[in-house]
């Protein structure tokens, strides 16, 4: 098995089969009528929430920053996509992909424009400035004429189907995963671990930070487009700080830096409110309590920095050590040649490898 999986090509094949299998199962379930139309439709929010969580995870988990304005990118993408489909009158198969990509690109532009100045700041300041930008985007959209102002846009055609949403999700997860596996991904992780050391090692941190932010914004924009064409209305007041925090909750609960964590958390947190509709009064109380409790007892989230890998699962399965405890490491992708060597000693600042080290402060105000 290991020899089979050693070839990258085979690993791709395996993962493609896995994805196709999941899709097949979902479609089968819907065909058999186990899920009715409403419940099948609930899977669409799951898809775009996964995209949102995974894209935020890119900036928050892998890059180690805390952007609090993600909903702003989502709204920009959503509005762009909606305005395009409202203006064009082409068949869905043509205008929807155009709209989605355009939405993503416009959001990416915003991400770039916001990222460039914002990423010069660290930690808390970055959080606040992105929050500020998110709010400004919301207010501007609320006041512009062509975006429908405070009443938002309505009458958007319902182009988002489960297949389209699923496809977009797969593309997003694949893109982010591939990015993180490449040397760009390693550069991003190194920035998270110790930015100054990374800079000294010759990694252009500003370039990578801005690039990550832009890519993250792109996917958020695509998710926004899917959202707009599912709900068929866009109300700017829905894209405020609250929405950014909801997405952040998904990423944090799932585990910062864990893609499977983001996916699972997005899945669970999208469906939970519907299941608990009878208790919807208590829902937000439970959410917030959950958030606090998880933060206190397991700050790294449900999955920590663990990342699911089909090939590793199969390898362990074939070797029979599926349930053996593994030595902790950073899950930084290790080149095949080094696989046999000893695991390198822990070089991060914080003692516990699962918790990302404290981002360094530069302009912190410390005097009372």
């Amino acid at each position, binding site marked *: 098995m290991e020899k089979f999986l050693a070839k990258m090509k085979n690993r791709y094949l395996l993962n493609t089969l896995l994805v196709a299998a999941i899709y097949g199962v979902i479609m089968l379930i819907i065909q058999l009528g*186990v*899920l*009715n*139309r*409403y*419940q099948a*439709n*609930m899977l669409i929010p799951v898809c775009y929430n996964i995209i949102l969580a995974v894209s935020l995870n890119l900036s928050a988990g892998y890059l180690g920053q805390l952007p609090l304005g993600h909903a702003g990118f989502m709204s920009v993408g959503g509005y762009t996509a909606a305005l395009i489909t409202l203006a064009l009158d082409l068949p869905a198969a043509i205008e929807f992909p155009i709209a989605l990509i355009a939405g993503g690109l416009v959001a990416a532009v915003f991400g770039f424009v916001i990222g460039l100045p914002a990423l010069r700041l660290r930690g808390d300041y970055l959080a606040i400035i992105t929050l500020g930008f998110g709010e400004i985007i919301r207010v501007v959209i*609320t006041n512009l004429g062509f975006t429908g*102002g*405070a*009443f*938002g846009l*309505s*009458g958007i055609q*319902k182009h988002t189907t489960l297949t389209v949403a699923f496809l977009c999700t797969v593309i997003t997860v694949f893109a982010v995963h591939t990015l993180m596996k490449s040397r760009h991904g390693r550069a991003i992780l190194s920035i998270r671990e110790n930015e100054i050391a990374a800079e000294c090692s010759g990694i252009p941190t500003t370039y990578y930070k801005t690039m990550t932010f832009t890519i993250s914004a792109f996917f958020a924009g695509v998710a926004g487009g899917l959202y707009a064409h599912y*709900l*068929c*209305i866009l*109300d700017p*007041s*829905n894209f405020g700080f609250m929405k950014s925090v909801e997405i952040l909750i998904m990423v944090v609960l799932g585990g910062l830096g864990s893609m*499977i964590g983001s996916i*699972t958390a997005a*899945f*669970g947190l999208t*469906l*939970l409110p*519907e*299941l608990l509709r009878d208790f*919807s*009064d208590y829902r937000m109380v439970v959410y917030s309590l959950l958030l606090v409790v998880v933060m206190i007892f397991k700050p790294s989230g*449900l*999955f920590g920095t*663990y990342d699911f890998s089909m090939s590793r699962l199969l390898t362990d399965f074939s070797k029979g050590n599926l*349930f053996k405890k593994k030595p902790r490491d950073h899950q930084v992708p290790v080149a095949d040649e080094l696989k046999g060597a000893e695991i390198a000693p822990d070089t991060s600042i914080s003692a516990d490898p699962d918790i990302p080290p404290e981002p360094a402060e530069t302009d912190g105000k410390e005097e009372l």
Partner: protein
Amino acid sequence: MKKVLAIVLVVAMMFGMTACSGSGSDTIKIGVIAPLTGDVAVYGNAVNDAVKLYTDKVNTEGGIGGKQIELVVYDDKGDATEAVNAYNKLVSSDQVLAIIGDVTSTPTIAVAQASVADNIPIITGTATHLDVTSFGTNMFRACFIDDLQARTMANLAVAQGVTKAAVIYNASDSYSTGLHDSFLTYCDSLGVEIVADEAYAKGDVDFNAQLTNIAAADPEVIFIPEYYNTFYLIASQARAMGITATFYGVDGTDGVLEIDGADTSVFDGMYFSNHYTTDDPSEVVQNFIADYQEAYDQTPNALAALGYDAAMILYDAIERAGVYEPSAENWQAIIDALYQTDMQCVTGHITYDEGNGTPNKSTKVITIEDGVYHFYGEY
């Protein structure tokens, strides 16, 4: 292992959802969407209570076609997106025969748009915005439209000899903005000068900046097309600032006297347009007031009356159409029956023109004197 378990659990929960479906065919399911929590919760609860009151009454008398009516109520929290979610759930999951909802204009517009493709009959008691019935022929309302009440208030201004008026409105609410736009148009054509036109945004609680500008313009009348809570804030801040102008309100202003802890002297001498008045001696009105008083121990406000009427109109149509299971043909049958409506309701005589979901009605103006509502006239 823990993680695998977690994934399995979540998937299992998802399948658990399948348990929550299925319906009985011996009841008629009617969906209700209303803001039971949020800024306009008083309205949502009033409408919901009134609908329940009428439903109970009909059920006690044998239901419709021998079947009991079952209400499926969802809270939209005053938010358009929640309303659309509730609508989706009612149509796909709960499979209702018809829907009564929503209460305020913005969520109702969203639901109306979402419903055109399905063509399910929906009647709103209270959404007064023009666009509500513009998307499809399946949308009905029991109330008049905002344009009518804006014209009423403009007429009132002329009748009271007012020459200078000011407006302060909520630019992020379609109801308030629609009323503002109509009022301005009518004042313009009737010769009332608008000396100040101020806007604020949703969630604002501090109107000093706008009121300062209004005070400087010295109007005789200030038109405030807003719901009762915010209306009170604006009115009390204006009085605190020393502004003595008369306040003009709209149907959303009804309920100001019921605000817990409000200083009602602020409202003395104000006027607002409304759907009905408790002074109306007709039998249908007095019976309704008596029943409502008995069930909920308070006098019903206009929205309760409209909710009651919405239910009345809908159930009458269902009875005439004689269909009780949700399906495309049955929905169309009920819609056709609705257009044939001709009945005397609490808020007036209701008929619909073919293809127009807005009924033909008139507006009443109410004034407040010494903390009590009084019927002033029809304009």
